[in-house]
């Protein structure tokens, strides 16, 4: 009987997810954009419907009417988003379009917080849906039955429209080959717009109709986002039947999880997802044309230089001034600012290590924070409860643990996946780590490790006391600076040139005698080691580490920093980190404002300046230089154009 109940509950969850996932898969199937923000649009739909129907909808008609109104409003919003964002994303690489939709998610979430506040609302089901029917010993809420029915209905409608109607023929033709479809006279932009509107309509409808099943909070997007992702990945991106089957599978797995692992809710689905990605990265149903990683990706954002620049006076001066400003901070800055700068330094190095994979090796991962969290928890736990292991040993251990886990993950992941599958795989691993930490009381569960002491470093003859804030700041700044310089030197050596060769053309690299898989793995290991070491340096600075350190939101931070600064430049991530930290500092008192601004800035960067801020700077610099031609010097290794 418990099994029956678990299955029924699972189906309800699965069908709710399907309503969101179907929109994601529709948009992907058409536009080849994996819309990470779809869960947030679902949330906006829910808030709109909530505003219309209030907390006590008086009838089923009232609830349905509110949902319909929200759905129509969302369809209009979809039209706007399609024109303003999606249409422009077709000219950028896969990773960039993923990040742009993530930026949309930030804007949506910020907007929701700013408009509706951060409070929690709950909506009760109208009376007609509030009851339950029982059959034998089995008992099922009417509302759940209605949701399951709705999910099946939406599936049938989509199935008939896409696979059995003349309209569907056009839609499938475009999905298969947009260029050819355009050539034979199909108005592809119109169909794109209609599909996006349909997807947004579904998100709004789902948001309205699912109101009574959950509390309306600004976190509403999260569960729907990750789970609908899993559904479309398992089903095969862009395939409605796959999404439907995937949703049922997800429901069943959740049910099993509830039965067998009640202490670790939601973890089984990640395990299944990872198995799926490794076994069948293309999902249950392979969709023609769904492979989106192509040559285009390579050049968006530019390729970083892998040859040492000339040490001009200006460059040296900039370096010296920056170092002096940062190191003198404890003398003149207030405590709040000092703290922010310390965080920004750690985030900058984390972003540098991520860009080693993205900008140099051409691998976009979405779970980089997991390595950071490993190091942070290792050092934090040992400093607090470990009993006197020397700090420098702990730091070395954190780098080693990062390297070892990256070796294991990379060995499997790089062998089997690339592109979107690699991104989702790394994202899932990060989420698993977060959940494991969350359910481990020894690591402080939800609250994290607090009260981490700052160490005294024993160096034999003398010891360095890092317990004061100033002392640890200097140590942190010097360490981050050294790591960054060492990494810079690495990228300017023969090894760096191997990386940019692989990124630009893996096949050419292979025919230069570079074992691409092995060198990608090296980059993965180095990047993981640095991320973990950074986490280790960060723990005593913050003196608290929470599971959020491993969350996907934290994983996106290095991406945002890198893209804003410019992935085609070694120092781009540092520039981005400085700007985002300043933004966060300036907007810290307004709920949602920082997300709103960060997201908007990021969308602008991806759409208008994919080279980031440094890319813009280089463009202007070139324009200026072009007016004053210089004589070419043959043996010097210098580029004459971007």
């Amino acid at each position, binding site marked *: 009987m418990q099994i029956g109940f678990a299955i029924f509950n699972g189906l309800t969850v699965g069908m709710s997810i399907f309503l969101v996932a179907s929109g994601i898969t529709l948009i992907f199937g058409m536009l080849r954009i994996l819309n990470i923000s779809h869960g947030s649009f679902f949330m906006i739909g829910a808030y709109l419907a909530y505003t219309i129907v209030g907390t006590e909808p008086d009838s089923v008609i009232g609830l349905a009417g509110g949902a319909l109104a929200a759905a129509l409003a969302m369809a209009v919003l979809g039209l706007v988003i399609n024109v303003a964002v999606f249409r422009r994303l077709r000219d950028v690489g896969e990773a960039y379009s993923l990040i742009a939709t993530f930026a949309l998610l930030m804007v949506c979430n910020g907007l929701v917080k700013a408009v509706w506040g951060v409070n929690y609302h709950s909506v009760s089901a109208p009376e007609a849906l509030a009851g339950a029917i029982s059959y034998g010993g089995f008992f099922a809420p009417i509302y759940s039955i209605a949701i399951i029915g709705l999910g099946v209905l939406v599936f049938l409608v989509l199935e008939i429209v896409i696979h059995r109607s003349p309209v569907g023929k056009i839609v499938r033709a475009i999905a298969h080959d947009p260029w050819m479809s355009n050539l034979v006279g199909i108005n592809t932009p119109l169909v794109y717009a209609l599909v996006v509107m349909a997807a947004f309509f579904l998100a709004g409808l789902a948001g309205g109709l699912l109101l009574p099943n959950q509390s309306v909070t600004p976190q509403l997007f999260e569960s729907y986002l990750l789970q609908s992702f899993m559904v479309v990945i398992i089903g095969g991106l862009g395939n409605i039947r796959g999404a439907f089957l995937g949703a049922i599978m997800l429901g069943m797995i959740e049910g099993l999880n509830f039965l067998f692992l009640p202490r670790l809710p939601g973890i089984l689905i990640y395990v299944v997802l990872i198995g799926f990605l490794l076994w069948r990265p293309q999902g249950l149903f392979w969709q023609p044309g769904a492979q989106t990683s192509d040559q285009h990706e*390579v*050049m968006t954002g*530019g*390729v970083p230089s892998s*040859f*040492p620049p000339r040490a001009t006076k200006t460059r040296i001066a900039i370096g010296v001034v920056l170092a002096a400003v940062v190191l003198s901070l404890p003398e003149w800055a207030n405590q709040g600012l000092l703290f922010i700068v310390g965080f920004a330094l750690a985030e900058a190095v984390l972003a540098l290590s991520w860009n080693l994979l993205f900008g140099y090796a051409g691998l976009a991962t979405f779970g980089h924070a997991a390595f950071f969290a490993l190091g942070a928890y290792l050092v934090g736990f040992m400093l607090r409860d470990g009993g006197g292991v020397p700090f420098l040993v702990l730091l070395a251990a954190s780098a080693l643990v990062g390297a070892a886990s990256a070796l294991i993950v990379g060995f499997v992941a790089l062998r089997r996946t690339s592109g979107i599958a690699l991104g989702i795989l790394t994202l899932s691993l990060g989420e698993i780590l977060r959940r494991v930490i969350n359910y481990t009381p020894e690591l402080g569960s939800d609250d994290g490790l607090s009260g981490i002491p700052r160490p005294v470093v024993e160096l034999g003859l003398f010891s360095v006391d890092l317990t004061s804030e100033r002392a640890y700041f200097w140590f942190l700044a010097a360490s981050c600076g050294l790591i960054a310089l060492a990494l810079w*030197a690495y990228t*300017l*050596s*023969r090894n760096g*040139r191997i990386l*940019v*060769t692989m990124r*630009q*053309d893996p*096949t*050419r*690299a*292979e*025919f*230069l*005698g*570079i*074992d*691409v898989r092995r060198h990608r793995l090296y980059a993965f290991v180095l990047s993981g080691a640095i991320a973990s070491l950074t986490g280790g340096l960060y723990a005593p600075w913050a003196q608290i580490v929470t599971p959020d350190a491993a969350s996907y939101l934290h994983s996106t931070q290095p991406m945002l920093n890198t893209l804003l600064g410019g992935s085609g430049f070694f120092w781009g991530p540092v520039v981005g980190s400085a700007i985002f930290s300043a933004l966060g500092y300036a907007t810290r008192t307004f709920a949602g404002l920082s997300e709103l601004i960060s997201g908007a800035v990021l969308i602008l960067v991806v759409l208008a300046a994919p080279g980031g801020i440094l890319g813009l700077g280089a463009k202007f610099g070139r324009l200026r230089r072009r007016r004053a031609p210089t004589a*070419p010097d*043959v*043996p010097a*290794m*210098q*580029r*004459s*154009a*971007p």
Partner: protein
Amino acid sequence: MIECRNIHKSYGAIAVLKGISISVAQGETFALIGPNGAGKTTFFKVLTGETPANSGSILFKGEEISRLNASARVHRGFGRTFQVARILPGNTVLENLVIAVEARLRNQGHRSGFGLAPGREIVEEAASMARRTDLDDKLHQLASFLSHGDRKRLELGITLSLRPSVLMMDEPTAGMSPSDRRQTIDIILKLRAEEKLTILLTEHDMDVVFGLSDRIMVMNQGEPVAVGTIGEIRTNAAVREIYLGQDDHDA
């Protein structure tokens, strides 16, 4: 030098190569020709290690290499150019060649020194390769701005910087203008003499094939039709029927 026996390859249910055997001697230039879909490119990929054969053996200088991946074959002396030139578009011509010279040194087991920048002899070797491939006036141009013919020449320079013992060229003059084509043949002839190269190539242009090759294999539908010198191929009745007859207008 290269000895292939009985190579079979199929994509799913479709058999693309149905038992190909060839043997190429040191210093020889061997051309694969045949109509579109004959399996030339697939055979090429099997030889270079981009795709594994289902069965058969490949011996290179007496060593069985059919299980090695592409980069391992490069270490043993393979060099490869593509129908659409594979170069590094985000780097300059000189940087492309420097990276190739460095790659050779690494393949030969030279460790890099402490300096980050490539050594002077590396840059000079790269610059001299640019001269030999007629690219010395474009050293500091980004490769993405090169014309089609220049890209092909740069790719040839990159590949020769590896000092391969066998050069594999997939349609070295595909998509070139007649003058570019002439220039490319001249460069290949010159470099072949200088480096004493063994060359394997596929090509549609009969002028190029007859201008470069010592021996030719004609393929059709995954099977060898004839192997022989230019004279033998010209007079082979089977070849005339299935290939040269239809393809005359192309030449």
